[in-house]
């Protein structure tokens, strides 16, 4: 076991890590590359979990580009995927911005346009947090999390 500490979390070494410029075309490319990697790693086993991982990745990446890097194409975002000792995993989406607190985000009123992406990530994952020091959004899951087709967080 090759455990290391990332923030307060013990994780295995990343089995996938890559970086992209903060452009519109990077959204699709980075999602496709990450989905390929986590599918071959065995995290995605059903079309439901593929849908949920794709959705969480897109929401996190769009947040990193628009809010973290403020759409600056010279800004870079990085995605890393690690196994965790509890048979789950964690995906880090890191930007170069000042971040936000996903815990403070609640569902907006029906007429409000934003904020739903974080709520969706919080539903599918076991834990979603932004680390201000590393500028990374952390999406952690266990085998029971909805993203794996497990229990319900609603």
């Amino acid at each position, binding site marked *: 076991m090759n455990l290391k500490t990332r923030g307060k979390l013990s994780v295995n070494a990343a089995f996938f890590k890559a970086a992209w410029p903060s452009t*519109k075309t990077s959204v*699709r490319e980075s999602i*496709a590359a990450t*989905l390929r990697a986590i599918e071959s790693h065995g995290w995605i086993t059903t079309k439901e979990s593929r*849908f949920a991982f794709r*959705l969480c990745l897109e929401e996190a990446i769009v947040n990193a580009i628009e809010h973290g890097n403020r759409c600056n194409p010279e800004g870079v975002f990085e995605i890393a995927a690690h196994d965790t000792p509890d048979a789950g995993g964690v995906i880090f989406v890191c930007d170069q911005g000042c971040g936000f607190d996903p815990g403070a985000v609640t569902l907006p009123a029906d007429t409000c*346009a934003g904020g739903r992406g974080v709520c969706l990530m919080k539903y599918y994952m076991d834990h979603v947090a932004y680390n201000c020091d590393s500028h990374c959004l952390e999406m952690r899951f266990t085998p029971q999390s909805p993203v794996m087709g497990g229990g319900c967080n*609603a």
Partner: protein
Amino acid sequence: MLEAGRPEIRFEKQGRITIGAVHTPDMLDDSNVSQFADRLMKYISANPGIHLLLDFESVEYLSSAVLSELLRANGACRNNSGSLRICGLSPQIYQVFQITSLDKLFAIQANEKCEAARNRFERALRVADDEQGWASVTGKIE
């Protein structure tokens, strides 16, 4: 590779309701949502009072960017005495609407075919007409 095609919406009037069949090879996401929204908003602006039922049967994936545009379209319909409903969602997309509490706003029912949703929409419009009729009658009596 994930490929996003240009989304199309084919509009067809059926009685008082207009069906907007959304056609996209796969997904509606951040990369093509603005094309989808432009087409939708232009049609709604050109048809004030429209009662629109958007058919999502051919859509396999959408993100929260699409939800925001649907809310904008809903507001545009309502501001002109119209309404917007959605039908034909896959179980995964239906769940997204449930998680964000938008299933009730768009009057979506699980596993309902668009034909049934259209009939339910027609009935709701008739009930609304009846209620308006009664309100005008009782208003005159008082």
